[in-house]
């Protein structure tokens, strides 16, 4: 397992360099000039040039990227062009929001997706059909639309949850939970349907195997068969999908943070991209890359737990 983690660590360095370089190159093609944004459309060419020089934007692209990369090695993510704040501080203030949103959504997706999938696999009658229909509906509805409806019902009309904003857990654990409920539901519904469908198909496949019949013949209870044998075996492909869903939750968070006005990394990178605040875009890109690497590592570790053969192979 240590070898696996070491390999992943080496790969993560390569991934961070490649992804940051890709971001840097792509951003250089996006129209826009931070100096023009700051000084406005009436700025003289001289003033624009002075500001570009003071911000270091007049240097060759490879030099700018090289400086940023060496800063990253030293743990310095640079400074925002507009706010003057260290990027590490800006990310530190917001990463908790995005991680809370993501972890909450993945937990909800895993619990409800697996439960619904198993239920559908075991009860193939009307329960299964209802689960199928709900899954299809949840898959078809866009997350941001669900978010708006949830706000209209539960925040504006019923006043059960806040419509916007985030409360850090250090300020109020209850407020923190309440501020995450609607965004997590909005982010999770699509994922639940995907996981439920995968779980149902896998569980049905396992339930049809000979060894399940043998287990039943030995007098083992249905609950034990389901939880100890079916769930464990069906969980392997579902875990892969859960990892992919977690990554898609990360991209979905960009939209959901805007709807619920959550000060997370998604809203930060959106405004930074529009303003060409490259240090922020690169910094958030690194954090996103690290999160994706961690998700993949956790999926690999989960394989090892669920399937001993996978441990040997890795």
């Amino acid at each position, binding site marked *: 397992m240590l070898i696996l983690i070491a390999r992943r660590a080496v790969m993560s360095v390569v991934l961070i360099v490649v992804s940051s370089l890709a971001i840097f190159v792509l951003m250089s093609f996006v129209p*826009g000039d931070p100096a023009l944004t700051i*000084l406005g459309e009436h700025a003289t060419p001289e003033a624009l040039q002075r500001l570009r020089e003071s911000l270091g934007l007049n240097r060759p692209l490879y030099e700018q990227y090289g400086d940023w990369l060496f800063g990253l090695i030293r743990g310095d993510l640079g400074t925002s062009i507009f706010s003057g704040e260290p990027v590490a501080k800006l990310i530190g203030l917001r990463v908790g929001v995005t991680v809370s949103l993501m972890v909450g959504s993945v937990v909800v997706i895993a619990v409800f997706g697996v439960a619904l999938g198993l239920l559908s696999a075991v009860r193939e009658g009307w329960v299964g059909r209802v689960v199928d229909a709900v899954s299809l509906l949840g898959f078809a509805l866009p997350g941001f639309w669900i978010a708006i409806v949830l706000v209209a019902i539960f925040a*504006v009309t019923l006043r059960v949850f806040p419509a916007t904003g985030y409360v850090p857990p250090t300020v109020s654990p209850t407020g923190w939970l309440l501020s995450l409920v609607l965004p997590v539901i909005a982010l999770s519904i699509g994922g639940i349907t995907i996981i439920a469908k995968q779980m149902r198909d896998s569980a049905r496949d396992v339930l049809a195997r000979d060894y399940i019949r043998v287990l039943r013949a030995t007098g083992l209870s249905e609950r034990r068969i389901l939880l100890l044998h079916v769930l464990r075996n069906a969980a392997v492909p579902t875990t892969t999908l859960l990892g992919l869903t977690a990554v898609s939750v990360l991209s979905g968070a960009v939209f959901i943070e805007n709807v619920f006005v959550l000060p997370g990394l998604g809203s930060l990178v959106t405004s930074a991209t529009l*303003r060409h605040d490259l240090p922020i875009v690169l910094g958030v890109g690194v954090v996103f890359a690290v999160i994706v690497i961690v998700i993949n590592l956790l999926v690999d570790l989960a394989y090892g737990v669920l399937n001993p053969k996978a441990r040997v192979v890795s």
Partner: protein
Amino acid sequence: MKHSSRVVKLAVAVAAAAIALTSLSACTTPAPSPSSERGALLTTQFGGVPISLNPALAGTGGSTIFTYLAYDPLIYTAGNGDLLPDLATDWKFIDDNNTQLELTIRDGVKFQDGTDLDAAAVVGSMKYFLSAGGPSLADAGPIASVEAKDAQTVVVTYSTPFPTGPEKLGQYNMIGLIIAPAGVANPGSLLTKPNGTGQYIYNADETVAESTYVYDRNPDYWNPDAQQYERIDVQVIGDPTAVVSAATTGQVDFASANPDTAKTAADAGLQILQAPFFNWGITILDRDGTLVPALADENVRQAIGYAIDRDAVVNALGADYSHASGQIANTGVPGYIDGYGFDFDLAKAKDLMAKSAFPNGFSMTLLSESILDSQSTIAQTAIAHLSEIGIDVQLQVEAAVPTFIGSAGSKSYAAALWPIVGQRASEPASNITGPGFLNAFQVGDDQLASLIKDSNVGSDQDRLAAQEAITKRSNEIGFFIPIVATDSVYMVSSKVANVTISAINSQPMPIGPDADHAWHPVR
């Protein structure tokens, strides 16, 4: 985005117009007597992140709030457009040509770093502003020099007559916001530690940059009675649905609205304030026909003006908060001529095209954006009838304002749809003929330039006449084809009182130099 200044009055004749306008369109929430008891927290919303917290580089318009809370202006512009003393207790032109403006600086005021405010500090701040080249530099006027006459007196000298000079030293014109000498010496520090004499101190520890900006009451402020709240938060919320959700559930006390969200907010019991603000129109960029030769023809430009069905645009936007516009000046401001301007007359448009050198029509690309013109409603509705006079228009819609500005200034587009603002006809006229993206090909008009110059000299009546002449000349040359004027609309919590807006000050700010001009908590 960049807003031109919105400050006030031209003097006696203009004041008359302003008073009439104010009586027609000013909106105020109920104003109970100010009390010494302060509110704990006021939360306001703004739609975008600040360009900078350094006044010399900051944006104006509604984003003024990010700087104004921490920096006092020399002169305060009230909601109805009146100019009131702030850091300057008195001001007057000391020559007959309106080129030398003398300001008396308030005594006993301290910056937030504890240093004293004096004339030298004011001069240092203004000179720094002039050298920084920020986005509101063009609004400061033709300043030739700024000198300290003595410890409490500053003289601003303009290179040409500039009777509106005092207006340009208000809270919406960043040169009027005075920065402490230590901040001038180290401008980089102002991004994270604003240093003015303002009523509120920027709280960098609790601020989440680009999301929530926190300002705490300045305990050493020179006029504590003016401070009506212990803390003011400015929430950055761009999505209109999120804005109205936050407003109707009480998470923000003051927020911008659009026709759709205003209705929702009104149904939820919020106060709705509105005042004219944007004047939307098609700015012809390619006036000498470099890209599209037909646009060099005045008949063609006039034909476009008459081929736009403005009522259809108003209906598409929502009639409660928009009005057809046929001239460069917004309703009620100096230069506005009642009953004058372009209207929808397809027959006349066809006649003009027939008279032009391009009777068979032509093709052009219209640049627009989808941030201010949500879903390109104005652009799409405005061009609906242009094909009937033979003009085939392709829309190029940019998704971000900076991108739009860059594209408009790139000389790649013949025309652009963009809103103009101004307190008098000469201001938008200067914008579309001066340097900047609205005049990408650098084509002006001598007669218009002469009228703009005239609008700064002579008697009040002469200046008002010049403003009206600017409006007429603008329509004659057709560099700007006005379409629709849209209101600034705000949702205000029932817990907040004394919010005042009008056509001449449509971006209300929560603080003022005294309690009478500040928003109050309702008790």
